[in-house]
């Protein structure tokens, strides 16, 4: 475990190993997403109240979960970067911010599309929705800060601090549906309880969720590798890699 952690400090090692992981994650996410969405959109039974409009859940819930979990990963990576000065953690934060922002945006957008037939409105100032919107603004803030500071190390540290401060929003999002009596329905998935839905409905959701995580990992790996090449462009191994014209 610790040797793994120490090896993570070396961008070159990570570049090599992630090149081996990448096709696997890409393939698994493609299979899961195709399989899951066909099952979810064509074969899962209709909801007894919402009819077919509930099917957007299969996009909405995974992206909402990813949006929050990406922010938490950024905060953890930010803390690791601040404490152990690990370059890779800094690169991860930089790579993850736009991805997390897109997942948040997707969650808000699919939520609006879902809200129109179900609640009769695109948007309400409900606690869950508002706190997700704040999350989007926090992602924008981190991205703005990263682009405003020219020095890469300073930018990474500053955005790590901001990610840690912004972490207070995550429990607010998580418990907003329990603390406030709002329009948004309670969490669809919990780790501890059996889902209230029949298996034909939640199994595809689970497949989509795992597929989203694999997709997220694929994108993050690609972006982090790109970041590694850019930051380590003065080192010998990158020069060798580029001049050789080596493939991924």
């Amino acid at each position, binding site marked *: 475990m610790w040797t793994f952690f120490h090896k993570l400090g070396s961008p070159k090692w990570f570049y090599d190993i992630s090149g081996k992981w990448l096709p696997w994650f890409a393939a698994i996410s493609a299979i899961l997403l195709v399989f899951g969405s066909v099952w979810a959109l064509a074969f899962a039974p209709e909801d007894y109240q919402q009819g077919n409009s509930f099917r957007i859940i299969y996009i909405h819930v995974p992206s909402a979960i990813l949006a929050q979990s990406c922010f938490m990963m950024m905060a953890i990576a930010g803390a690791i970067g*601040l404490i152990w000065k690990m370059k890779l953690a800094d690169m991860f934060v930089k790579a993850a911010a736009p991805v997390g922002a897109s997942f948040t945006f997707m969650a808000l957008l699919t939520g609006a599309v879902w809200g129109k037939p179900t609640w009769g409105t695109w948007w309400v100032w409900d606690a869950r929705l*508002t706190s997700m919107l*704040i999350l989007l*603004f*926090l992602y*924008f*803030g981190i991205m*703005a*800060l990263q682009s*405003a*500071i020219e*020095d890469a*190390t*300073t930018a990474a*540290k*500053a955005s790590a*601090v*901001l990610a*840690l*401060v*912004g972490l*207070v*929003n995550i429990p*607010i999002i998580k418990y907003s549906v329990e603390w406030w009596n709002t329009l948004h329905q309670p969490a669809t998935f919990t780790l501890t309880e059996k889902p209230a839905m029949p298996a034909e409905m939640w199994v595809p959701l689970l497949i989509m969720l795992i597929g989203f995580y694999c997709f997220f990992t694929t994108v993050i790996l690609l972006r982090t590798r790109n970041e590694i090449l850019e930051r380590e462009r003065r080192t010998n191994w990158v020069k060798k890699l580029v001049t050789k014209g080596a493939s991924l």
Partner: protein
Amino acid sequence: MNVSVQNTASPSVMSIFITVLKRDLTLAYRRRQDLVNPMIFFVIVVSLFPLGVSPEKSFLQEAGAGVVWVAALLATLLSLDSLFRSDFEDGSLEQIVLTPQPLFIMVLAKITAHWLVTGVPLIILSPMLGVMMHLDFDTIKVLMLTLLLGTPVLSLVGAIGAALTVGLRVGGVLISLLILPLYIPVLIFGTGTVQAAANMLPIEGYIALMGAIFALALTMSPLAAAAALRISLSN
């Protein structure tokens, strides 16, 4: 980077707090125009709502507390950029960072000074604006109470944003982008309290939450702002 110069008699934490506080208050007093500007801004923003939206008594009573809160928030935001900037430009911020005393104490002193010169005048002005918004006397008292608990949070959380952007040329706009999302919970609970009071509902729960937010901000944000200052000064 914390090169400490060994003094023969190192001043205590309390005295360093008071020294920095006095220095910042003196500086603020010498530049009185900067002190008055956020207050004028505060009053103007509030007076825009009756002119721009509706002068109806019922609307103003409904929206009054929210309007005063949003205006207070924007006025604080306006003054935040100057929290560390002038010290950064004349080099005294580096001296402050290099002293052997804990940085977060001095940051806390600077934040306290900032609250005293921007937050407190807003609280003092708020009853007048409350009357202009046709709020009744009891609601105004609650409004003042929420501002008393809320404006320190605005200064404390805002200091993190000010510290992160102090070395940057685009500081002003970026602070709003970084800090406004973090202000939203305070705004929600602040206006929620006043609304509950206006509807004769119990407000103790809200006040307790505001107090909890204040306690969290008071303990955490000087540390975060101090860390952010070190990062901003490191290049």
